[in-house]
């Protein structure tokens, strides 16, 4: 599983998981699964996240595996 900075990026914007889920048009459960590294998003969803946070994908996700 990929490591990600979603929780930090969300906190910087004062968004809840539900807020992010609404912006991405996915369930809060989906955001939680991605954020906790239990589910790796597809490339299209990763690009949507990158657009939303106005960051390159590699600044959100890193190759370092979560254990």
């Amino acid at each position, binding site marked *: 599983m990929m490591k990600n900075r979603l929780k930090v990026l969300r906190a910087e914007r004062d968004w809840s998981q539900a807020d992010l889920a609404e912006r991405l*048009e996915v*369930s809060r459960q*989906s955001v939680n699964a991605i954020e906790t590294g239990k*589910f790796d998003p597809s490339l299209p969803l990763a690009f949507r996240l990158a657009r939303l946070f106005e960051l390159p994908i590699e600044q959100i996700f890193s190759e370092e595996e979560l254990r």
Partner: protein
Amino acid sequence: MQACSPNAAQRRLSRRIALTIPFSVLLAFVAAAAIHLWKFQGIASWSVAVLAALPILAFIAAVFAYLAEEKDEFQRMLHVQYLLAGTGGLLAAMTIWGYLEDFAHAPHLHAIWIYPIYWLFVAISMPVINARYR
């Protein structure tokens, strides 16, 4: 099959399933009554049997339509896992039951029970699979 508040695809699935259930019950009773009353034979009895199964086929089609329409990829993956767990549970149970019938004189299980048993395994798998993603 919904784990949290339903999205549009999940609401459509619920509506479609809700439509098939009364027809399943109605056609099962009508088919049983028709066979009993008119003693259909051959192709007529086969036709009545297939007619009785049509709402079940519609139910299965509704589930496949949901998987095609679900835009939330995590939800889609979860539902595929539920269905696979149901399939695995059903295959295991039916294999064991088959041997029990052959070797231990267990009562014969009518094939019509396979469908509710499948959904029983799907239902059992849901909280287990959901717990992995909490």
